[in-house]
């Protein structure tokens, strides 16, 4: 049986209570909304991209502890990365939370989300901000939905 502590790790709870980069980014040249119509979680991700590199990134919105911590830690992990690296990281993060790859490389602190794979209904929470990031980088205008 999965332990609740595998999901609600200290670092996740800490980020959910004090999210980093939680702000509207005035300099953003990419922006997208992520929305989970089933639970109402809703975030906007702002990205400032220059020469293919993420110079700055921020987010705002509301949702559960998992979605908020994931958004917060995503923004921390992506500053200074190239957009290609960011997309690649999303792929590996997705493999982690869906349990397809329990030890993906180069995810650093994000590996705390490995426990999500034991809670299939929470995968959408953990990946919501990443879907919004992907949409922002692709330049999509409409809000992305998990459904």
């Amino acid at each position, binding site marked *: 049986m999965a332990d609740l502590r595998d999901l609600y790790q200290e670092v996740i709870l800490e980020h959910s*209570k004090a999210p980093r980069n939680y702000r509207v980014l005035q300099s953003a040249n990419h922006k997208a909304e992520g929305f989970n119509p089933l*639970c109402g979680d809703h975030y906007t991700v702002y990205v400032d991209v220059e020469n293919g590199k993420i110079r700055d990134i921020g987010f705002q919105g509301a949702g559960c502890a998992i979605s908020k911590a994931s958004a917060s830690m995503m923004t921390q992990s992506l500053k200074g990365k190239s957009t290609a690296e960011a997309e690649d990281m999303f792929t590996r993060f997705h493999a982690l939370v869906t349990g397809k790859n329990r030890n993906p490389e180069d995810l650093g602190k994000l590996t705390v989300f490995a426990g999500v794979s034991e809670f299939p209904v929470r995968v959408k929470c953990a990946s919501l901000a990443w879907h919004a990031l992907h949409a922002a980088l692709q330049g999509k205008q409409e809000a992305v939905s998990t459904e």
Partner: protein
Amino acid sequence: MSTVLKTPEVQAATTYDVQKVREDFPILRQMVHGKPLVYLDNAATTQKPQAVINALVDYYQHDNSNVHRGVHLLSERATEAYEKARVSVQKFLNAADHREIIFVRGTTEAINLVAQTYGRKNVGEGDEIVITAMEHHSNIVPWQMLCEEKRSVLRVAPINDSGELLMDDFAKLLGPKTKIVAVPHLSNALGTINPIREIVRLAHAQNIPVLVDGAQAAPRMAVDVQELDCDFYAISGHKLYGPTGIGVLYGKTKLLEAMPPYQGGGDMIASVTFEKTLYNRLPYKFEAGTPDIAGVIALGAAVEYLEYLGLAKIEQHEHDLLAYATEKVSAIPGVKLIGTAKNKAGVLSFVMDGVHPHDIGTILDHEGIAIRTGHHCAQPVMQRFGIPATARASFGLYNTKEEIDVLIAGIKKVSEVMG
């Protein structure tokens, strides 16, 4: 010879032996994440007693056949069982006539049926439809679709901070342009019981028909459509311990007779030529195609089961559970109830400081407790209270005080885990 007859004090019990009733529900005998299942999501759907499960199995094992058309014995048996269920539902709602009972897929389809037939015929440009601020999406969207088509206007009667309908404001919305009023009997998100008789009285004073969404009320209290005097009453089988995919639209004969059919097809016709089709009489005019025969028969078994237990006893039982849970949950620091109407049943919606309902749901699930988290298909209600979602425990006839104690311990565990 004289015998002295001693009449014992016969007093009808006000409730039933809940432990014995639980034995009728096989699904409740299971462990979830290693803990006994505590099912508190009854406003979403209820569990089924063995009698309902047996009705489904028996029908397919012994009587399966199409209704209203065969000359053979199986068809005769299926038709008889199908029509017997209609009479059971008629008695359950105390409708004046069995032809006023139309079988549909559920409350949603019942409301769509009225919007698409009565509504399309009677609501025109600039006309108004009045609903309340506590609707389930199923009593909003069908009317919005109609308003869009007919360029009519949806008016929403406001509620107060306890989740009660503001009757003065409601009354003011009614006028010569109002063509229909659609209200919930019991709010799925807040638990509020609306004063249907008063609503109907106000509407009828201006000749406006009233549709009542009875999805949450029908399993929780005795419903008498003649006493309520409503024009339409919609219910879902699966919320009253019957199968999914079956429900009922009750409508007064006079209104149903004047309404055009909803869907065309078999069973709803009297005769068909390529030039002209004559529609069948009630209720078949509204039951196109082969119906969910097994579902109807099992729904009949469900309402018979509820009447065997007694709706008054079920109401009392759930009232006691809600009172107990309300007292215990409000005493937990950081927990706030959403929906505190004086007249309330079955539903306990709450939020916790600093904890999103989704996280509450996951942690309670780990304790074996099934609740609903989210907007409960009532997003405007969430907007009214300025919250994205709530956690909702909703009670059924088989829940116990011990289960509420487990819920309380679970909510305390949420605080521990989330820190």
